[in-house]
């Protein structure tokens, strides 16, 4: 099946919008030029946030009628970059600028087993995959983890559809996901080297899984994930970027990225994926006052620890200790 990795713009009309769970909105878009969205695809939306045009990515939860109905699930994140607030305000009949389905998280074929792990709203990237695996008659498990049942989207529907293939972990019910046990089970189970895991969720969960995956000596290419760089070790806070070569400082608010803020300030920087994957936007760090919250998946753990460079598109700075009143600051080498 042709895999679409190309970005082209079109208009989409909101045909349905309602609440899926507490703080989670279901938005069904009907695009101008419908194309079926295969499992794992997302669409980018161009949103006007306080006078700035920003691009935000949302997984396609479900594609129906040859892509004439694309369902998104959007969580209202108080500390997010402003996109979710805008999305929650959409009403039936509104028109949005959107891309066609873009595939950068495709479901493979031919593995002996599949384990899908969703943390919170990450479930939106995995619903279509689970449906697909079910249709294929594949051996799969869908793991859903969340803080509270009320905020977990599609829980009941998924449980109905996937029956005993589903495993639910809810923090405040005391049933927490034990990452090491989960990965250990795969390593000790049938065909560990032919088991693929697909995960989407907060970066901390994904980091923990990645560490366990490596510790259990499972093949790294079998661990697939998608991150839009939207979560980190600290909640987003305002910070300052110093650019000595340009003789200026730029403030980064909670709902913009460093890359957006620099571009708004007229600084010409290079970028491509804008989600912390490709490393094109990497710059050298001269100094840090506070902590760097990398949030990208381009730099290795070791590289992140040395703090000598960062990816502009997703990385943030944080004070690190809440008592401190001065915002954090990073000084970057931008020749």
């Amino acid at each position: 099946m042709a895999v679409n990795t190309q970005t082209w713009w079109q208009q989409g009309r909101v045909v349905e919008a309602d609440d899926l769970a507490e703080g989670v909105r279901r938005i069904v878009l009907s695009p101008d030029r419908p194309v079926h969205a295969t499992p794992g695809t997302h669409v980018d939306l161009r949103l006007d946030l306080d006078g700035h045009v920003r691009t935000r990515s949302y997984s396609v939860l479900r594609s129906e009628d040859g892509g004439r109905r694309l369902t998104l699930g959007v969580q209202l994140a108080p500390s997010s970059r402003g996109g979710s607030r805008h999305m929650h305000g959409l009403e039936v009949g509104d028109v949005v600028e959107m891309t066609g389905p873009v595939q950068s998280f495709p479901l493979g074929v031919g593995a002996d087993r599949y384990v899908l792990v969703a943390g919170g709203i990450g479930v939106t990237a995995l619903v279509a995959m689970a449906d697909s695996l079910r249709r294929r008659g594949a051996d799969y498990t869908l793991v859903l983890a969340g803080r509270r049942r009320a905020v977990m989207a599609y829980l009941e529907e998924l449980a109905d559809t996937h029956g005993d293939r589903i495993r639910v972990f809810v923090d405040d019910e005391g049933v927490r996901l034990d990452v090491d046990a989960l990965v250990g089970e795969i390593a000790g189970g049938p065909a560990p080297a032919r088991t693929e895991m697909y995960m989407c969720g907060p970066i901390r969960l994904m980091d923990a899984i990645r560490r366990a995956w490596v510790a259990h000596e499972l093949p790294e290419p079998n661990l697939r994930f998608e991150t839009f760089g939207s979560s980190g070790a600290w909640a987003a806070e305002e910070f300052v970027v110093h650019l000595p070569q340009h003789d200026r400082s730029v403030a980064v608010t909670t709902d913009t990225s460093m890359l957006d803020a620099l571009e708004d300030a007229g600084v010409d920087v290079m970028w491509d994926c804008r989600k912390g994957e490709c490393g094109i936007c990497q710059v050298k760090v001269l100094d840090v006052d506070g902590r760097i919250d990398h949030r990208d998946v381009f730099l290795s753990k070791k590289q992140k620890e040395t703090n000598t460079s960062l990816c502009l598109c997703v990385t943030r700075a944080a004070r690190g200790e809440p008592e401190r009143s001065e915002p954090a600051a990073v000084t970057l080498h931008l020749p």
Partner: protein
Amino acid sequence: MTILDQPPVTAASKIFNFPRNAWYVAAWDHEVTAKQPLARTIADVPLALWRNSDGRAVAMADACWHRLAPLSKGKLFGDEIQCPYHGLRYNSAGRCTSMPAQETINPSAIVPSYPVVERHRYVWVWVGDPDLADSGSVPDMHQMDSPDWAGDGETIYAPCNYQLVLDNLMDLTHEEFVHSSSIGQDELSEAEFEVSHDDTHVTVTRWMRDIDAPPFWLKNMRDKFPGFSGKVDRWQIIHFEAPSTICIDVGVAKAGTGAPEGDRSQGVNGFVMNTITPETARTSHYFWAFMRNYRLESQTITTQLRQGVHGVFGEDEEMLAAQQRAIDANPDHEFYSLNIDAGGMWVRRILDRMLQAEGLPAAAAAK
């Protein structure tokens, strides 16, 4: 499904579209190796075909994730293929395993890998919706690797729409005109034939009784019955299975020895195995073999039959190429049908329904 449920399908499309949700032969098993990838386009999808260290055949999109360099020009390292340009490596699932210039691997670095089944001496691929790829639906060509049959074949690169090849095989009256020196004879056009079908199969049956054996068949009779001469009963039973496999049960038996009633012991029987894979709307990979169920031990006969059929199919190839050129030169002219096209028209009806189910038009997009 009954006929009445369907909108009428009228004139035949000249450049027939092809279903994507189907198994197509991509290569003979021996063509796909662990030494070097093979480049081949199947149903408009350029593929790199190779084998990993445990012998499994792999079909991957022939374009690197990075800058789309063809992976088929790359090298194989055990379970991985390396892009010839900047050295990215991929495993058989298409997931990147190494980015030489960085410490991590971009999570989106994946090239599509397609479902593959190896069966009947062929490597079959499915380029459509992988959710529907059921290995149980690979067309039946069991004579290809059964101990009761022996033979071999070749591949023709046919510069024509795949449906023209199917038409050619569903009506064998053309033998009288195209293959007059080998298998053709007047009785072909004169003999009655019967067409039957279900949702995925079409069968055309033709018997010619008490006739002279044409040169090809006389030789085969003499291989089994040395010194044979006399009249024969000849049969051609054409079995089509969707989307594009045609196995033709052919043979002759000493006249009046009961072959039409089921006793073929006094004759020779072969199966012409054909499976046609659209490469593009105007080009096809035509895989064929001639299998026989007598004198299985004779490699000489295998070679002679392969060479014989090679000659016969060379005549078809020339006709098909010329027909496609004429079609392209006459875009405003329709196809008309003769009574002999009944089998081919049932094939088109079945394909048309498959295309409808996929939401595709019957006519391929003009190039």
